[in-house]
């Protein structure tokens, strides 16, 4: 009852003021609620992460799409890993093939006399004071040494003996591959030294033949024989590699 102490004449009329008051108070309360809720909502929207206000359906969908992306990435990883393995394998194979080819090239280079060679072997010195050791004798020696397994040979550090090497007699000595070599003939041969030495000293062999013309043959077996002469380069005119 507001009239209980409404004793002053200067007070405004109580009844309308009270009605007005209540209306305003209620409206103010509601508006306060609105303001409060608005601020709270704004704050929660800006504070929380992007997914705080999201609905369950949206979240499930999001999760699903993440799962799918994850699976896709996983399968991509597997694919790339297998590709990497394949590449590694193939590069290892290439490496092996390369090494094989290099070994082959080395072997062929030694056989063809394109590079120098070194290794155990024999050094055969043929003294020929009468000049009667000819091309045929030399060819025999070379053939015997080949039979004994000589892998690289040279004469007088001048001529590399390879498959195409030819010998011819000329006035003062021998021509090998068109290069004149004169006595004493020093033949360097790389191979199994005892076997090579036997190839020159067997009965009826080089020693005996040279002895008939008053020459001497001396065989040394150094630990390291160096064959430094290179063969004449011969490019084939007709032969081509067959497939």
């Amino acid at each position, binding site marked *: 009852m507001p009239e209980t102490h409404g004793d002053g004449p200067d007070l405004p009329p109580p009844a309308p003021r009270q009605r007005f008051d209540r209306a305003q108070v209620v*409206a103010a*309360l509601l508006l306060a609620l*609105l303001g409060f809720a608005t601020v709270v909502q704004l704050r929660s929207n800006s504070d929380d992460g992007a997914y705080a206000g999201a*609905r369950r359906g949206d979240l499930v969908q999001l999760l699903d799409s993440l799962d799918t992306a994850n699976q896709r990435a996983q399968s991509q990883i597997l694919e790339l890993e297998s590709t990497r393995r394949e590449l590694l394998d193939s590069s290892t194979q290439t490496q092996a093939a390369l090494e094989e080819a290099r070994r082959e090239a080395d072997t062929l280079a030694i056989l063809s006399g394109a590079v120098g060679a070194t290794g155990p072997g024999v050094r055969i010195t043929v003294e020929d004071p009468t000049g009667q050791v000819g091309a045929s004798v030399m060819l025999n020696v070379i053939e015997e040494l080949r039979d004994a397994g000589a892998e690289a040979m040279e004469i007088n550090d001048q001529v590399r003996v390879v498959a195409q090497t030819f010998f011819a007699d000329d006035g003062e000595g021998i021509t090998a591959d068109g290069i004149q070599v004169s006595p004493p003939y020093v033949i360097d041969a790389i191979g199994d030294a005892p076997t090579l030495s036997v190839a020159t000293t067997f009965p009826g062999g080089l020693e005996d033949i040279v002895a008939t013309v008053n020459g001497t043959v001396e065989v040394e077996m150094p630990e390291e024989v160096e064959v430094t002469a290179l063969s004449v380069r011969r490019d084939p005119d007709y032969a081509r590699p067959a497939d």
Partner: protein
Amino acid sequence: MIAAVGLLAGLLLGLVLQPSVPLALQPYLPIAVVAALDATFGALRAYLDGIFDDKVFVISFVSNVVIAALIVYLGDQLGVGNQLSTGVVVVLGIRIFSNVAAIRRHVLHA
């Protein structure tokens, strides 16, 4: 006058207390705020028209908020919460626009 003070007090209270929204209320609070805004603009328009009634304002405010939240809740239960809340926001937005247009005509006579 008191209404403006109340609005300000509510804003300040929210700023000072900085409460977090309960998880259960999270989907409904934004819709409720929009509905309350609609009711408030409607009340302002009625006040300018000279037909403001506090009872009508209170009832419309409360029922607006409750119905909006209820619709969204129903939508969530039916699995169309997203679409229904969008619909509610659109409808309330249109109403807010027309109310604000009426207020503008009153205030600016344009």
